[in-house]
Structure formats: C-alpha cells, structure tokens
C-alpha cells in the first residue's frame, strides 16, 4: 500500500499581480496541508497570470528569488508544483514549473514547446526550455513535469515515462474555445485534452495529473476541468469547469506496478529503435544525409550512411 493524497489547486490567478498570487498559493498550500495532501499542484503561470505580453519581464523571478524561496519554505514535509516566469542568468525568460519539496526548490522544468499560432504568441515573449528529465520526489515516486503545450507533443510523455516517471504532471493555462454543441461539455479544447490525458496515462501506464487554471485574462476564459487519470486510462477525478477550488484526490501508487505488470508496454518500448530512426529522420530533414530512396542508377553502389552499417 502506498497511498498519496493529491491536492489540485484550480486557481484563477490575477494577471501580473504577483503578491496576490503568492498569497493565494500560500493559502492553497496551507489548506492542502491541513487536508493531508502530500502533493499540491498549481496551474501554469499561477504566480503571474498567463496573458502577460510585455509584463513578463516585470514579473519574472530567478530561481533564487526570495519570494519563491519563501514559498518553498512552506513545503516542509510535502511537495508542491508551482509555475512562474523564470529569468535565467543570461536574462532569457522561461515559463517554468518548479517542484518545491521539504522547504527547497528541488527541480525546475522549463516549458519546451511554446505555442505561437492561433491565439497564442508565446515565442515572442519567452525562450523554450531544452531539458526533459523525470525527477525523484520525496513522495516515493518519480515525477515527470510538463507545462501545457508540452503535452501536445508525443515525445514528452513518452520520454518522461522512459526516464522513470510514474506520475506525469501537466500544469496548464488552457484557454477555452471552439464552442460547439457536438463537443463533450461543449468545448472543443476540453474534449481534446481529455482524450490526450487518458491516452497518455494508458500508453505510459502512469498516473496523469492535470491542473488547469480558471478565471479570465483579458478576453480569454480558462476552463479548469483539472483531472487525475489512473494508469489504466480511467479518470479518478474530474474538477468542475470554470469554478475555482482546491480538490483532494486519493490515489494508490501501487496501481502503477499493478498496471505495468499486467500491461508491460513500457517494458516493451524500443527506445534504441526510436533513436536510430530519429537520427536518420533528423539527418534527412536537415539535408545532412544522402537519401537512400533517391534514384541511384541500377546496380550502382549506394553509399552507406554515416555512422552505421546498412541492414539488409
């Protein structure tokens, strides 16, 4: 038996008002603690709000910012995922999610994929992270952190699971849109996310924890609907849409083992195959390799590819 109580802090951050949001996080931590939670998850940019534009630089914090450290100090004996604008030493700005544990900043994940299309303009204001690692947590499981759009790229949950993550945590500021009666709960965005999370949980045989904010920034409404999905792909808990709230969800970490014994998908993954083909694809996409399929005259010897023998 290895039970874990997760608290999902489905907050409505105030745009650009760092102090108010820090206070809301403190309240969330305290409430989660008194409710017996071992892990509290706050949404993407919960400390700053989402639609920052040029405000991003004004609300940015370094990882050693006293405000972040003092928030971390309130995590003695527990774990929390919080998200903010991180300013690096070289003054690049990242959308980051930090794992705070036992009073310190244990790990920082920088958002890898910055949507810059449709209503999104993140690449204009932020730099993209370039590291994807699972992290060992005090709760006795490895965690895989991801931020919103990171989960719209298959390699992210796959890599995190291969790196040993048993709980994939996605923190989001997902704007509700594509209003149509044909969608589950009336929103195209919600329907897509629910499909993704169930699929990832099942394929990685991991828990998926999704914390999405609510409230509005400017014209955008964030839809909430935070969830915890079991390694079987079944939803353990779904928070209401649009309402602010702190929700407790009890999971049994032993379910990961059970599912992975019964459905050993991760055992059967072929990362070396994937890597080999990825190397080829990358070379071809960047014009670095001679295309094996290109027309060589009949009988002419085809040049071997760089770095590895051809298989026959």
């Amino acid at each position, binding site marked *: 038996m290895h039970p874990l109580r997760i608290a999902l802090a489905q907050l409505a951050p105030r*745009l650009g008002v760092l102090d108010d949001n820090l206070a809301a996080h403190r309240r969330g931590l305290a409430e989660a603690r008194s409710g017996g939670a071992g892990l509290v998850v706050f949404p993407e940019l919960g400390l700053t709000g989402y639609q920052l534009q040029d405000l991003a630089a004004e609300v940015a914090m370094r990882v050693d910012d006293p405000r972040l450290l003092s928030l971390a100090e309130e995590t003695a004996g527990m774990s929390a995922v919080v998200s903010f604008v991180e300013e690096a030493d070289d003054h690049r700005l990242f959308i980051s999610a930090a794992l705070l544990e036992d009073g310190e900043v244990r790990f920082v994940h920088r958002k890898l994929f910055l949507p810059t299309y449709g209503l999104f303009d993140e690449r204009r204001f932020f730099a993209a992270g370039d590291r994807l690692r699972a992290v060992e947590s005090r709760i006795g499981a490895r965690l895989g952190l991801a931020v919103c759009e990171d989960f719209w790229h298959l390699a992210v949950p796959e890599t995190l699971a291969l790196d040993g993550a048993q709980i994939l945590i996605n923190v989001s500021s997902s704007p*509700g849109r594509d209003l149509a009666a044909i969608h589950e709960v009336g929103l195209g965005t919600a329907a897509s996310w629910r499909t993704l999370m169930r699929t990832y949980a099942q394929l990685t045989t991991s828990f998926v924890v999704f914390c999405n904010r609510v409230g509005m920034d400017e014209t955008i409404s964030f839809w909430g609907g935070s969830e915890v999905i079991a390694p079987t792909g079944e939803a353990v808990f779904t928070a209401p*849409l649009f309402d602010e709230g702190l929700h407790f969800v009890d999971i049994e970490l032993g379910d990961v083992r059970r599912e992975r014994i019964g459905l050993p998908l991760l055992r059967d993954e072929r990362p070396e195959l994937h890597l080999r083909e990825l190397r080829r694809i990358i070379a071809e996409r960047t014009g670095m390799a001679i295309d094996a399929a290109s027309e060589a005259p009949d009988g002419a010897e085809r040049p071997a590819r760089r770095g590895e023998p051809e298989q026959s």
Partner: protein
Amino acid sequence: MAGGSSSDPLGGREPAEPLFELPPELAIDTEVARRVTVGFVRNQLRQAGFSRGLLGLSGGIDSALVAFLVAEAIGPENLLCVLMPYRTSSSESVDHARLVVDQLGCPSDLVDISQIVDGYFGRDAEVGAGGTAAREASPLRRGNFMARARMCVLYDRSVTWGGLVVGTGNKTESLIGYSTLFGDSACAFNPIGDLYKSQVRQVAAAMRVPETIIRKAPSADLWPGQTDEAEAGFSYPELDRLLFWMIDKRRTDEELLAMGFAGTAIDRVKRLVAVSEFKRQVPPVAKLGPRTTGVDYLYPRRRPGSSR
C-alpha cells in the same frame, strides 16, 4: 443558397412553429456560452474598477440578450438600459425594449434622439447645422448619424451612471461590416461579438429573452420597414453557415462550392468581409518611435495600476 438541412432548435418540444431556424453546425452549448460571457462581463468591469454597466436597448435580440447577460453578471440594479428612439423609429421597438426592462427590473432611461439628428440634417423647412445640402442626406447618412448620436448619449450617460458601455454587436454583423464605425460598434467591451446571430438566438432562447423579440425579423430600424435580411440579401442562417465554414473552418472557395454554397454568395460575402476589415481593427498609427502601441509595446489592457 446552401445544401444541408436545418434542425428544430426546440427539439420538437413544441408543435408550434420553431422559434428560429438553426443550422446544426452552429449549435452551441448555451450553458457554456452563458457561463463564459457572464464571467467576461463581471471580469471586464471588475478589472476596470467599475461595478455598473449600461447599454443601448433597441428592442432587438442582440441588445436584449446582452441586457440579460449583464443583469445576471452584476445584478439588474447595476445595469442602465437606455432607449434611444428617433421620431421615425418603429413604436414596436420601444415596446419590446420595455418588455426587457420590465422582465429584468433594471433602471432605464428614454432619450429621444430626434432633436440631435434633426438639429444637424434639418427638418421640413428648417435648415440644420449641416446646412441646406444636409436636408437631402441619404438614409445611409442619416442612419450612421443616428447610430453615432446614440453612441454620444451612451458615453455621456456612462459618466452620470458611473458605468461602462457594454457592446451589443454580434459576429455576423461584425464580419460583414453591418455596423456603424464609432456608432453602434462603440463600446468598452462586447460579450457577444464572437457569437453568430444563430448562436445569439440560441443563448437568448435559453435565457428566456421574450419570444416575440426572438421571433421578429432583425432590423437596424434606421428607416421604416428596414430589415437586415432584405438589406443584405441573405437570411441569417444562410449567412451564418457560409461565414462559419469560410472563416472558422477555413474552407476554400472550391470546397464551399462543393458543399452547395452559390458562387455569387461566396464572392459577395468574401468582398463584404474584406471591405469591412478596417471596422474591426484599431486605427493604424505610423511607426516612428522605438516602441509603438500595438506593434512593439504590447501590454494587457488591464494590469496592476490600470483600474480607476
């Protein structure tokens, strides 16, 4: 104009004539729409430091729905509905506006704009501020002037009422440019500007806007007998469907033709949309300085310190 069937928005609940024709692809979850738009109104006012709103109530469905949404967001006592008829406006318009005011129990004002408009264009033998030539002004000029006179009244009343002007234009009229720049389109924010007319009707029905308002033919009521659909040459369900597939679903002309839309309709609507692009955007400013509003000075409208 187009192929495909339309569904009964009442779902056969009532044997009587359906309230309106609803193309199935435009069906929305009205509870989600209500939730988002009501939250939007509340949020926009709060962020700006206001607790009150006001709007021009025409007697038509768009402003009626917005009045319902605002009343739900901030309470009817915080909404001022301003009725602004011109002397040739249909008396039905004022009657229908009063239905809304009575049902919501919100305060209202009646401002007859005839003197303002006649003061410019003149009336009968009298010459107005616009000179003798203005007496021959076309209905279009007069209509635009009325829309802007109403805007002036609303923005003046926004000071005495201490509230923000809430916009009432829908997505259909915005896309085809069926609005008066700095007239009926002028507002602090607009909760229904991303809903097609067919979707406005669904939300209005769900919120119990009086049926007679939902059923009547939409009209700008700028001159007697005017209706939107006669003027545009399209019915709203047809127009909404075409705009939806053309813009929201990015269908090419060939694909639209294959779907059964008429080539003439596609061409005409595309032209209307392109010609009215300027009405949907903030006026351009020549780029000169190192940081220019809307170009490389990009802040949220509302941020710390921006409210009253």
